[in-house]
């Protein structure tokens, strides 16, 4: 009996297995093969030595979807819109958030104008058919799509958020006509109004669907071949899991799946350490991801926009997503100089193939990992649990041209690369904290991913966080976060109802229907112990567009109590209430979560004697110079162990650095706590 999670990153594939009988955790890490992500998963299962039949739960997540989009590696996609609206995708919302930039451009759309087709037919705002759907138009565009070898089609017709009849009919028609082309109808992904936002969401879903479909088909077949018989789940961006079947047709809901799992895990670290305010830092081979947890709750946003910054509107994706800032800075990030000899690091990564130069797999560019090796932070003979032997010579060779152009030696060049990449990481951390009005001094930094613990001490010092916490198995932590994630389904109904047009019985009946839908959804998966339901309402004053959300206790609810709760929530959010203004009900939200056993860390025994270092070597701490530094094996650190930096702690999936002037304490769960001494 055990629960299995796998997480495919740009560079590594991680596995965590939690044995429910013994409470023991098993972890494994393999290299990702971008062309076939299932390979790393199967290899990890082999390496962990699991009895596949014993798995009672399998959850899978990763960065496949987001990488396909940001690297523009999706399929050739067409868009079908209502006649007169094919340019909406390109126009976007026309805003210039970069106010003083006279060369501003709206981000380019994923479907060129020639592949955006219009279809006759119109449904009005009240749902009446004003003009029937024009099937001849569909025939014509289907022929064009065939000619252009289009692999996926997104359909977005006006008012389909409420009245999807035409959109459904068009989708059915095109699925019949073009059986080898995947078709996404916008209402199948989002039921929110505003045609541009729904169109981009549908287009991005279509753009990756054939890829994800192939990937999940392949993965499922190979998993079954290993003997895994349990239900298979996919990690979603909303912080919950879903079935493989749902994931195949709604791949866009996986857009931040790996990072969301890490954030869930970070919230659990906070709970274990009684620290409700956590900044999570997840550094992998390709990217660094940051998120902020306030009062124990990861922030889920319905206003997600891929690649959005304060000056870039990005691409809106209308699915719930845990709020994350991600930058191209990881172990594999390549350092390079522009024409003016200015040093940059990333966003291009050497990934797993060929990997950093020191892997000796053919990489020739200097990367962050190579810089850490030259600095003495990494041990060439004991990296990734000894799976990879790092070559100092290869790293030196990769850094030589950079050093020459900088007019420095390779050590100085490696220092410069570390400074630049850490400055980039600091900016990302500030984006989720300082720039949103949070003071890092009131937060702890939870660092994980293969690279997080290596940079966290320096980043935490610069940011001024209270302490840095490194959980156990930091290198496979997102996968661990997935094990801690419950299957979840959010169901939303929109009904515009004036306060005197609805009774408490109507509300209960509506939630009852939604609950039945959720139960039906869960019935098809694993036999769960129990499903918990939470209910929330979104109301507004008549005339407003935006709503205020608040939870309700359905069992004891009355209309008066609901209205009172709304007025209070409105005042709390917007400083005022309008007692004489009529109130309108808008959204009814049900969150259904199946209970799962959360993985637990075994407590560490506190040893009678202090831990012995496994060795010592010179390490370059940049500002604090090169110091002879004690090296510890993480497995040898007992609970209650305390010591002063500088030191390096090694384990199979990560290396933790403690700077001179910092103190280390190991708690009873084996988490590392780093504070300024």
């Amino acid at each position, binding site marked *: 009996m055990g629960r299995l999670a796998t997480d495919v990153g740009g560079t590594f594939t991680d596995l965590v297995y939690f044995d429910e009988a013994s409470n023991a955790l098993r972890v494994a890490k393999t290299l990702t093969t971008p062309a076939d992500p299932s390979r790393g998963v199967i290899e990890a299962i082999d390496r962990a030595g699991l009895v596949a039949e014993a798995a009672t739960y399998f959850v899978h997540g990763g960065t496949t979807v987001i990488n396909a989009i940001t690297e523009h590696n999706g399929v050739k996609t067409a868009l079908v819109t209502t*006649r*007169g*609206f*094919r*340019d*909406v995708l*390109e*126009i*976007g*919302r*026309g*805003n*210039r*958030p*970069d*106010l*003083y*930039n*006279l*060369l*501003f*451009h*709206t981000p380019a759309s994923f479907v*060129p*104008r*020639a592949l955006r087709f219009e279809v006759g037919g119109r449904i*009005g*705002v009240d749902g009446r058919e004003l003009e029937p759907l024009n099937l001849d138009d569909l025939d014509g565009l289907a022929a064009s799509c065939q000619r252009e070898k289009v692999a996926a089609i997104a359909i977005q017709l*006006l*008012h389909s*958020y409420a009245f999807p009849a035409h959109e459904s009919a068009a989708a059915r028609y095109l699925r019949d006509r073009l059986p080898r082309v995947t078709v996404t109808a916008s209402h199948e992904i989002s039921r929110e*109004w*505003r*045609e*541009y936002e729904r169109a981009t969401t549908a287009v991005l879903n279509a753009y990756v669907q054939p890829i994800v479909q192939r990937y999940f088909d392949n993965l499922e077949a190979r998993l079954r071949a290993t003997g895994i018989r349990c239900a298979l789940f996919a990690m979603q961006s909303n912080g919950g899991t879903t079935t493989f079947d749902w994931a195949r047709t709604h791949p866009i809901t996986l857009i931040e799946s790996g990072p969301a799992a890490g954030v869930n895990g970070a919230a659990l670290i906070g709970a274990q350490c009684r620290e409700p305010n956590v900044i999570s830092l997840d550094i992998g081979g390709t990217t660094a991801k940051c998120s902020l947890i306030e009062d124990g709750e990861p922030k889920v946003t319905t206003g997600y926009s891929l690649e959005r910054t*304060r*000056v870039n509107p990005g691409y809106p994706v209308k699915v719930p997503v845990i709020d994350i800032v991600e930058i191209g800075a990881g172990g594999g990030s390549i350092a390079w100089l522009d024409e003016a000899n200015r040093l940059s690091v990333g966003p291009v990564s050497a990934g797993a193939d060929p990997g950093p130069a020191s892997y000796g797999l053919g990489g020739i560019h200097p990367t962050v990992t190579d810089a850490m090796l030259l600095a003495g932070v990494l041990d060439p003979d004991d990296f990734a649990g000894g799976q990879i032997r790092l070559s100092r010579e290869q790293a030196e060779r990769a850094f030589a041209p950079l050093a020459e152009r900088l007019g420095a030696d390779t050590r100085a060049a490696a220092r410069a690369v570390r400074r630049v990449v850490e400055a980039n990481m600091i900016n990302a951390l*500030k984006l989720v904290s*300082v*720039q*949103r*009005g949070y*003071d*890092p001094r009131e937060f702890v930094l939870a660092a994980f991913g293969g690279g997080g613990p290596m940079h966290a001490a320096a980043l935490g010092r610069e940011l*001024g966080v209270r302490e840095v916490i490194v959980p156990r198995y930091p290198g496979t932590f997102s996968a661990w976060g997935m094990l801690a994630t419950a299957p979840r389904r959010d169901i939303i109904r929109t009904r515009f109802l004036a306060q005197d047009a609805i009774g408490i019985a109507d509300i209960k009946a509506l939630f009852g229907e939604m609950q039945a839908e959720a139960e039906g959804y869960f019935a098809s998966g694993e036999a769960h112990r129990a499903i918990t339901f939470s209910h929330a309402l979104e109301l507004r*004053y008549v*005339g*407003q*567009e*935006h709503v205020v959300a608040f939870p309700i206790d359905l069992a004891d609810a009355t209309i008066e109590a609901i209205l009172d709760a709304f007025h209070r929530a*409105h005042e709390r*959010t*917007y*400083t*005022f209430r*309008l007692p004489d203004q009529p109130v309108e009900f808008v959204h009814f939200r049900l969150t259904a979560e199946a209970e799962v056993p959360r993985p637990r860390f075994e407590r560490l025994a506190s040893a009678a004697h202090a831990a012995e270092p496994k060795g010592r070597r010179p390490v370059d701490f940049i500002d604090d110079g090169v110091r002879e530094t004690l090296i510890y094996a993480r497995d040898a650190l007992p609970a209650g162990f305390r010591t002063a930096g500088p030191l390096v702690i090694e384990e199979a999936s990560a290396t933790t650095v403690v700077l001179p002037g910092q103190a280390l304490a190991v708690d009873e769960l084996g988490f590392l706590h780093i504070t300024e001494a």
Partner: protein
Amino acid sequence: MTTAGERVTAEIIGGKLLAIADEMGIVLARSSMSPVIYEVLDFACGICDPNGELIAQSNGITLFTGMFSGQVRFIRRKFGAAIYAGDIFITNDPYEGGTHTADVCIVKPVFADGALVAFAVAVAHWSEIGGKVVGSLSPDSVEIYEEGVRLSGLKLYDRSVCNQAVMDILEANIRMPRLSLGDLNAELAAVRIADERLVEMCARYGRTTLAATFRHIVEASEAISRKAVAAMPDGVYRAEDVIDGDGVHDERIPVCVAVTIAGERMRFDFTGCAAQRAAPINCSRWSLVSAVRTVFKAFAGPHQPSNEGWFRPIEVVVPDGTVFSAVKPAAVGWYFESSCHASELAWKALAPLAPERFSAGSYVSLCGTYIAGRRAGTGEPFVHLEPQHGGWGAGRQRDGASALIALTDGDTYNYSSELIEAKVPLRVHSYGLNVADGSGAGRQRGGYGIVRDYEMLADEGIIYASYGRSIEKPWGVAGGRQGTTNYIELTQRGVHRRVTRTPSTPLHRGDRIRIATGGGGGWGSPLERAPEEVVRDVWNGYVTPAQARDDYAVVVGRNLELDANATAALRAAHGR
């Protein structure tokens, strides 16, 4: 600000101030009742120091953010020592720091430990504030008295007590009081949130630290700004332009600027511009200064957050009584139809100095459009006001942006067609790029404007609008061609006519309103455009095969492939 610790604190406070300004904007948008605020974001929020200097601003209307200082200073001048904790001021006087009457500014002084530490400011465009026409901006008014209620710096709250008389006057003089007072509530919410947050910050960091940080923010920006000016060659740089009509008369109105750079100073002199008009197209001196600041910021440091420090090196000179410095009682309802030309003049004059930061001419005019009436059945009034997006000029290295909001506005959204159909009795028949009218050809071509087609669904109503750049075309650079113009095409009972600046015109059920905005100017000779790019434009339907041949000397074959030989021959012929 010498120690590292102080610098970190300053940076954190600076970040928090931006976060407060952003939060003000979110609260204002989300609690408001008008589509022009919650959907289009026709507002701006910010924080000023006790002297009225701008310290931090939200994204929003570019032009508004340059106006905060003038309005706060007016309140300080008018009330002197009689500014108390719990006060909230309301002002919309174009002659005292404001833009036009519809832009209502709310100012809340923030006190900590009994001392004034900052002002929180929110300016929003109300859908209606009384006057000659519904929506308040008649394109043919001749005096400000036709443009609704003027509130020249009043206490709306006196030590936390609401001044009900002001509320009653507003309610009695506004056509849709629920809408406008709803937006007033949203603005009040924005300044109250800022007040709460700033008081929290003073408790956390102390008010002297806050004051020191304000100074640091402004001085750091001033230093960058001075350097940017000093890096430019001293000299006088001139530009001229024409405003197409004032709304009452169709005359062409000449305007000009002379920009003098001397060391670290830059002076914008608008002496010589046409006299103020008996029409609403004038702007006040305050709007002129803000319009110049916008372009100067684009020149000196486009990506950093804005504050007063950036603008210390510049001076704006203009005699009273020009179209850019109108005096009482001139109408100024469509001030943005002149101030946009002030921005354009500064832009055109500075462009040769920093070609990497400026593009060719754009569609310029916000093309403000009002469609109003009563709903069938209920008889309830409605007003739809809409700034239009359009084509921007090409840059030195990239084609111009299509369907982007003009410089006067900023983080300003277009309307979702689904939302329009749900909120007002209009059907949207199309919303797309104005490819039919084209854009300025060039090595880099201009971006395209938009076309939006409305059908009136109410029994009757009105439309009025004021579109500039309807005759004078957006300028090209270095051999790039001019862009195209803005207009509305009305179809009523089968009769088509084009209008640009049009006073209130009756509409009936079934009338069609086609809004078309222009394309931007091109950069570089069209003959230098890569033939492959022209072919791609043909494939995408941006350019017709005929335009490819005539404008770019590129010959496209029957299957939309490049005819390389014919193209080479044609280009050679053009070269001779």
